[in-house]
Each structure stands twice: as structure tokens, then as C-alpha cells.
């Protein structure tokens, strides 16, 4: 992995420079990235664009800091790992005291383009999203009031937030803004597929190209471009013991419906499905193949005529590898901040 280490080292001087000389930080920081053409309208914009860099760096530090959990053992990054496109390789992630969560950790990227969060879409704003994992007894297990106390007794965070807000104390909103400043910039639109689309690169083999053709016909009505999800809620025929979208709407027809996940970085975010019960893409595609012979009540109509040959499955898998974005997983600006920790 010589290329990888070279890439990382190339960024390091810039990183240190940016931390100390903020006003001069260069345009390669994620906060300066523009929405690529063809992407949807943003659902979230950080409210203080002039201060975004500072809030981002604070949010990034907090994302990797277990201070946000009751016993200071679990950080956001414990279940959202950068090299897995901010997902987890466990079916269910462990929270405090080894407690298992209820659902598979979803990957985190392109969040500012999403109209809702969580697999059932129950959360409707990026800023209020972290309240759920922070206060869930199975995850970080701490009340927002307790987090406030912890942060306000933390000299480093207190002084950093104070510089930004002009206030003596840190509020919930300050914490949530910082996390939103960081998470809203976890962008992923630099995969091989994106380069192929813009003509900077070509398909590595014919199977990839044919896989894209299969995808367009058989997958793209739910996993629509450019985000590879249309953000709708659908029952894909795979039963899990989870009410899904019905937990939010209380409508019986929404039982078992979940948000269509993006296929970007799909090769990194195994295991799959809401409960993480399918270990690899072969198992997922085998499930979709199996739909052809079954009559399943409430199956999403877009899946009713689904049929996939083994050849098509092979091609799809080849195509899906092109959706991995190493600018997400190896971006030093997204990684755990490694500058000296000030107390």
C-alpha cells in the first residue's frame, strides 16, 4: 500500500498548518468543497459559514472522543469507522458496557443531502441526529444534561467553544452544531464510478460496464443516481424483527419498510440489512435473486418483476466495487485528529 501512505503523508503538512494558521487554510479542506454538479439540493447547510472551519474541527474531535458516553468508553467513531465508510463490521455494534444496539450501524456520508436520518427516517434534522445515539441506553447511555456537565468541566472544550460562541458555558446546541459541522462535510462523490462518469477514467473491465447496465435496469429505480438512493422507504422482501418505518408513522403498511440505503461504498459497509444479518454482497444478491419465485405480501412494487441471472449478479458485484470512495476513507481531514491533546 505504498500509494496509500504517500497520499496520507502528502496531506500531513497541510493539516498541521491548517490547525495553527486558520485564516490561511487552503482550499482542500472539506469545508471548501463544492457540491458537484448533478448532486441534489442540500438539505442541510451549516448556519455559520464564516466559522465553519472551527466548528468542523471541534466536531471532528468530539466525533472521535469517548467523552460523549456515560463511562467515557464509546465515541461516535467506535461504531462509525472511517476505513469502513464510517460503518461497523459487526452486525450489531457494542455500546457502553458491551450492550448491543438494535440495528446495524449505517455508513455516514453525504448526510447533508438526506431529508431524514436513521433506517426508519425518524430523525429529520442533521443537528438533532446525534441526540439519539448519545442518549440511547444501549449506545452512549448518557443524558444530554450529563454530557453538558462533562463538556463544561473539560477545560479544552470549554475554552475552544468559548472562543467560538463568546459564552462561558457550552450548551447542547453548541455540541450538536459542532457535530453537524463535521458530519455535514463527510462527502463521498469521488469514487472510480464518478471519475468514469466525468470521463477522467474508464471501466477497468467489461464486467463493470455491463454491471452498470444491469444496475440501471434492475436497481436504479430505488438506488437512484447520483446518491444511489431515492430516500424512500421500501420493503425489500427481507424480513427482520423490526417495525421499521411504522415506528415513525404508525401506519401498518409501513411495517418492515426501511430507507433505501445508498450503494456508495457498499463494498466497505458489510454486514448488510437493518439487522446486519447478511455477511456479504453475495448473500444480499442471492436474496434479490430469490424474490423471482416468491409471492411476498407488501413487497415494494419496484421489486415485483425482479430477476437476476448469475451472470448479472457477477457483473453487478464488479460494478459495485467502483462505488468505493477512498477520498472518504483515507481523507486525513476526516480521521481522528492527531495533534497534541491540550488539557
Amino acid at each position: 500500500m505504498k500509494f496509500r501512505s504517500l497520499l496520507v503523508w502528502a496531506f500531513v503538512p497541510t493539516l498541521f498548518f491548517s490547525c495553527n494558521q486558520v485564516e490561511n487554510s487552503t482550499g482542500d479542506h472539506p469545508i471548501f468543497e463544492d457540491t458537484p454538479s448533478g448532486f441534489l439540493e442540500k438539505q442541510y447547510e451549516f448556519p455559520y459559514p464564516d466559522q465553519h472551519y472551527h466548528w468542523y474541527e471541534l466536531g471532528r474531535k468530539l466525533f472521535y472522543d469517548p467523552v460523549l458516553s456515560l463511562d467515557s468508553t464509546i465515541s461516535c467513531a467506535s461504531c462509525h469507522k472511517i476505513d469502513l465508510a464510517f460503518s461497523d463490521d459487526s452486525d450489531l455494534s457494542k455500546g457502553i458496557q458491551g450492550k448491543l444496539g438494535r440495528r446495524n450501524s449505517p455508513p455516514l456520508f453525504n448526510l447533508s443531502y438526506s431529508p431524514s436520518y436513521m433506517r426508519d427516517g425518524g430523525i429529520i434534522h442533521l443537528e438533532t441526529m446525534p441526540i439519539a445515539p448519545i442518549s440511547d441506553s444501549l449506545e452512549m447511555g448518557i443524558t444530554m444534561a450529563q454530557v453538558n456537565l462533562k463538556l463544561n468541566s473539560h477545560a479544552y472544550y470549554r475554552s475552544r467553544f468559548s472562543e467560538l460562541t463568546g459564552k462561558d458555558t457550552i450548551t447542547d446546541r453548541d455540541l450538536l452544531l459542532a457535530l453537524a459541522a463535521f458530519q455535514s462535510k463527510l462527502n463521498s462523490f469521488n469514487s472510480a464510478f464518478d471519475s468514469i462518469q466525468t470521463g477522467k477514467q474508464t471501466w477497468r473491465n467489461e464486467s463493470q460496464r455491463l454491471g452498470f447496465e444491469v444496475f440501471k435496469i434492475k436497481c436504479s429505480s430505488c438506488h437512484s443516481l447520483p446518491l444511489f438512493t431515492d430516500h424512500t422507504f421500501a420493503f425489500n422482501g427481507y424480513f427482520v424483527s423490526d417495525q421499521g418505518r411504522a415506528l415513525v408513522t404508525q401506519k401498518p403498511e409501513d411495517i418492515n419498510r426501511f430507507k433505501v440505503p445508498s450503494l456508495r461504498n457498499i463494498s466497505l459497509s458489510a454486514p448488510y440489512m437493518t439487522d446486519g444479518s447478511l455477511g456479504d454482497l453475495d448473500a444480499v444478491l442471492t436474496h434479490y435473486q430469490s424474490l423471482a419465485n416468491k409471492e411476498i405480501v407488501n413487497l415494494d412494487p419496484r421489486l415485483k418483476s425482479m430477476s437476476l441471472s448469475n451472470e448479472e449478479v457477477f457483473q453487478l458485484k464488479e460494478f459495485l466495487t467502483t462505488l468505493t470512495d477512498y477520498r472518504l476513507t483515507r481523507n486525513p481531514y476526516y480521521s481522528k485528529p492527531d495533534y497534541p491533546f491540550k488539557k
Partner: protein
Amino acid sequence: MLVISACHKHDVDDDHNNTKGSVTLKMDHQFLTQSFRADSVTIYTLPNGESLKFTQFKYYISNIQLKAKNGTWWAQPESYHIVDAGKTAPVIVISDAPTGEYTDIKFNFGVDSTRNVSGAQEGALSPSNDMFWSWNSGYIFIKSEGSCEQIADDNKTFIHHVGGFRPENSAVREMTFNFGQDLRARPDGAPSVHMHIQVDKMYQNTVHPINVKDMVRLHMPGENALKLADNIANMFVLDHIHN
């Protein structure tokens, strides 16, 4: 330094031409003829015979407006308040009412839809007040919790969390009260509005009579929350004012 100095907010809304006065809303909670406090100990008996103890009874009052004698309404800015009937003599202090004479007061039970969908909030709307549904976004407009002797389940507890901001299940209820005389807000006076909140009407002698033992848990917006919201709007009575 440039960036940091740009962060500080400047208060620009000081208007020295108008004076302001403070108006206090005294929230006097009652249960039938008893004075009410969610103190976990006192037993309150509903007309249907159910006996209740309350560990928690707190709710949002928001968007307070005062009607001036000339018919115009003054709206309190950033008007979100939690009334906690677990505390002794809860009040809402409107510290910024423009000097003047007022005939009516209007406020909402609950939190308007805008603030439910606008991201992280502060003050009374801060999530650390524990009045927010984290997994199904939205404010909990009221938490009424305690135990009821008539509940079949061994632990006897009930939890009623009412909320809902979407049009089809909005639990926001607007209430308007006439003072019967003029209320005079002024810098050198402390007028007060005495509200009676008849807690029993959340369940009985009300729009939708509800047996607590038949609705042990309520955690989300919907049909039952709408019924309780109608009942809650029935709890508030303006008793009298002092100038």
C-alpha cells in the same frame, strides 16, 4: 483574531424609546378541589374512582401574546417555557412586555412545528430538558407520569407523553383568555395573571374522558395524543389578575 472577533454577537435590538414591564403568569395547579403538585406522594382521586400519584407533570407553554387595548397583539420573542408542576408555585415571567394596557392573553400548549424541524435549539427548547423524542424527532409537549392503583400491571405506573407537530397529528392547542379588566404592564409595577390549571381535566370531566388504567403508556403522536391534547386545552382557566 479576525475570525474570533467575528463570532461575538452584538445586541442591536435595544430600543430606548420604549419602556418595558414584567408580567408574571402564576400557574396554580389544582386537582378537583385539592391543590396539586407532582410530588410522588400525594394521592389524587379522579371522579371515576382511579387514584393517582404523579412523579412528573411538566409541559410547554409557548408563543405568548398580549392584546393591547387598541386591538393589536404583542408577541413575546423567543417565547418558549416549561411549566413544571413538580415544583412549588411555578410561574412564567414575561419580562419584556412593552409598557401598555392589555385586555387579553393568548398562548399555545406545545411547541410550534417550525421549532420542531429547525435543528438544535436552546433555552427551554434545549434537548437537555429531556422533553424531546430523540429517535422520532419532535418535542414532548407534556410529560404526565406516575402510578395508578387501578392499573392491572404489577408496577402500576403510567407514562403519558403527548406531542405531535405534523398537521395531521398536531397536538398544539391555542388558548385565548380575556382579563375582564385592563392589565397594566409598566416598569414600576408587577402585574400578575393567575391561571388555574385543573389537572383532573386531562382525564375526566373533559372532552374525551380517559381511564388511566386503559391508557398506561403513550409515547408518540397520533390518535390518543390528539385526545389528550383536547383535554389539556380544557385544563386552563384564567382566574383573575392583579395590577
